[in-house]
């Protein structure tokens, strides 16, 4: 009998029962809903069933939240008022547009202490894997499942296989969690971790802040994994302590005791093992239309003529959509605009990293900076980061999913190219015919300064000399 993995411990602690066919009924500790949950509320209304646990359900306006002024259209405004009406009707706490706790659901959950180690967290959003950074079992669900959680506070799920991504070595200067994530996705493919829950381990993962860990777990789904997780440690506890909804006093001590038992046992075995050397990872950018189309910024645009079969077709389609020429240097790609924001990279550390590059410099292209929450915004302003962005010529705007998902009216115009800290470079993701290059906040800041994809390490080097 080999040891238990973090996944097993979390699963066992939430398994109400397991059917003969192997499907588990799991208890849900936190259910986060947003404007997109309207389908699910409609489903339970149709059946006439109440919300089983309004006290464990939290709402937030983010997907359609305006970042400047009022909602762009009546349909967008209706999405926000529908969420407010649904949460009010069921007695659910909702962080609406006027609430200082409002922000992107995967930013505010941890920020408010709703996200804790050892919990099971669901949200109708694929980036729910973000919360796994705390050693929680967190996964995105569809509208039918959201309705099921609303009605029963449980979810049916077959236990996924476990994959360990062990990262040895150290990330170099100017290289961060986003680069690490894009590096493994490029290595394994956009479906490389399908059917798996990933546990990230190793010294470089331990060295990451909670913000970095959240970025890493957030992007698990872009490699196909519905779950990403990191065992909790002192860094986790220090982040959680004192948060509004986190335990305190004797409960805190008891909680830390339990949380300390969560890490995978030393003799635990994983169905799939992957090893990465952090010291080999350079700043990464995407060139195509899936996050697996990612390369070090020092590379050249791939040539479909050197590929075979459907991979060649796919690369040709991607380059055609992206308007790129094979063989050219990635750093020759000029951008029209930049976006810093999203549940992937809009936390305070992300804004600091971008500001460190932009300080005292001017952006050659326009762009917007949308902090992950109103609290992040307030903190950034207290640190003077807003001035750095504004002085560089970028727009400092409100908090929400904004240009990552292009639901609130913020979008990239057809044919325009955007260097973006977001999570998906899919066709049309940022707007019809929009061209997205994913990269870290520091790399987006570098692209803003030069007007083309740029190795941020060069700009940081200049800074050291100065």
């Amino acid at each position, binding site marked *: 009998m080999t040891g238990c993995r973090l996944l097993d411990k979390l699963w066992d602690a939430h398994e109400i029962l397991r*059917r003969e066919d192997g499907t588990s009924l799991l208890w849900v500790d936190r259910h986060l809903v947003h404007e997109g949950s309207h389908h699910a509320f409609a489903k339970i209304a149709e059946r006439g069933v109440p919300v089983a646990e309004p*006290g464990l359900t939290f709402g937030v306006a983010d997907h359609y939240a305006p970042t400047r002024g009022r909602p762009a259209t009546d349909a967008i405004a209706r999405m926000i008022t529908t969420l407010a009406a649904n949460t009010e009707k069921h007695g659910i706490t909702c962080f609406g547009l006027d609430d200082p706790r409002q922000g992107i659901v995967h930013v505010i959950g941890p920020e408010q202490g709703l996200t804790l180690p050892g919990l099971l967290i669901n949200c109708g959003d694929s980036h729910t894997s973000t919360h796994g950074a705390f050693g929680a079992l967190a996964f995105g669900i*569809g509208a039918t499942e959201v309705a099921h959680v609303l009605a029963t506070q449980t979810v049916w799920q077959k236990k996924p296989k476990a994959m360990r991504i062990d990262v040895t070595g150290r990330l170099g200067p100017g290289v961060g969690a986003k680069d690490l994530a894009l590096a493994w996705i490029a290595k394994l493919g*956009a479906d490389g971790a399908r059917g798996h829950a990933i546990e990230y381990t190793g010294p470089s993962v331990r060295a990451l802040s909670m913000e970095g860990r959240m970025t890493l777990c957030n992007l698990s789904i872009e490699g196909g994994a519905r779950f990403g997780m990191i065992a909790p440690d002192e860094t986790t506890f220090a982040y959680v302590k004192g948060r509004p909804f*986190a335990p305190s006093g004797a409960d805190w001590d008891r909680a830390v005791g339990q949380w300390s038992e969560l890490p995978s046992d030393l003799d635990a075995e994983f169905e799939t093992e992957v090893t990465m050397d952090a010291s080999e990872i350079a700043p990464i950018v995407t060139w195509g239309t899936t996050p697996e189309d990612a390369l070090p910024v020092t590379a050249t645009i791939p040539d479909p003529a050197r590929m075979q079969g459907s991979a060649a077709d*796919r690369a040709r389609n991607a380059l055609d959509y992206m308007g790129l020429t094979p063989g050219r240097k990635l750093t020759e790609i000029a951008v029209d605009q930049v976006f810093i924001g999203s549940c992937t990279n809009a936390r305070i550390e992300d804004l600091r990293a971008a500001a460190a590059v932009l300080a005292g410099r001017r952006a050659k292209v326009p762009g917007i900076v949308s902090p992950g929450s109103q609290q992040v915004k307030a903190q950034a302003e207290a640190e003077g980061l807003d001035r750095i962005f504004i002085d560089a010529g970028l727009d400092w705007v409100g908090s929400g999913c904004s240009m990552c998902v292009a639901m609130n009216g913020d979008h990239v115009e057809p044919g325009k190219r955007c260097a973006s800290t977001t999570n998906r470079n899919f066709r049309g993701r940022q707007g*019809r015919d929009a061209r997205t290059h994913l990269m870290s906040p520091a790399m987006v800041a570098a692209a803003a300064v030069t007007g083309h994809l740029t190795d941020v390490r060069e700009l940081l080097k200049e800074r050291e000399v100065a």
Partner: protein
Amino acid sequence: MSGWSNHTGLAVALDRENVDTDQLIPARFMSTPRSEGYGDFLLYDFRNDAHGNPTPDFPLNAVPNASILMSRRNFGSGSSREAAVYALVDFGIRVVIAPSFGDIFASNSVNNGLLPARVSEAEVDAAIAMLADGAKEVTVDLTDKTIRLGNTTIEFTLDDVWQQKLINGWDDIDLTQNHKQAIAAFRAQHVQRMPWAIPVQQTNFRSAGRGTVSQ
């Protein structure tokens, strides 16, 4: 949701890898109530040009009565938006055949009676080649997990639980209501073991299920 075990219809090929849910339904259509129907939004930016005029050559425009879609690896990856499944179902698609599917998409599909049938890369290559000169009639049998295309029969992979769910048209909420007592017992024990499972600002609401928020 009603169950089904056998379906015969026209199959078309969407010869692309990584058809993500943002492509299946662009975000800008998702504020529409489901009652208005999502079929027109399916693969909108492929099926319509920049001026909103239909692109006649696109497979689903050429064969608007297709009910089976053949595609390549990682179909339905990305966003958890169930609207992607609504768009397929409302268009009239009953079966998607591909070498692999996004996990959340596959689960959403089964919850809406849409079959995500997995076959090998080689079988998809062969099937797409057979559909190269136009749509063909295909029969899908859920009971024995087979796809019949012309003289060829291929087996598809599908989780047994999902197979039963699709055949019986099971509704999870109904199934779960049968376990009410087990859920209540679990909750009591769970909260005792980890009181912080109830967020601290909300510990006043009644312990047995539904209650009011105290703050």
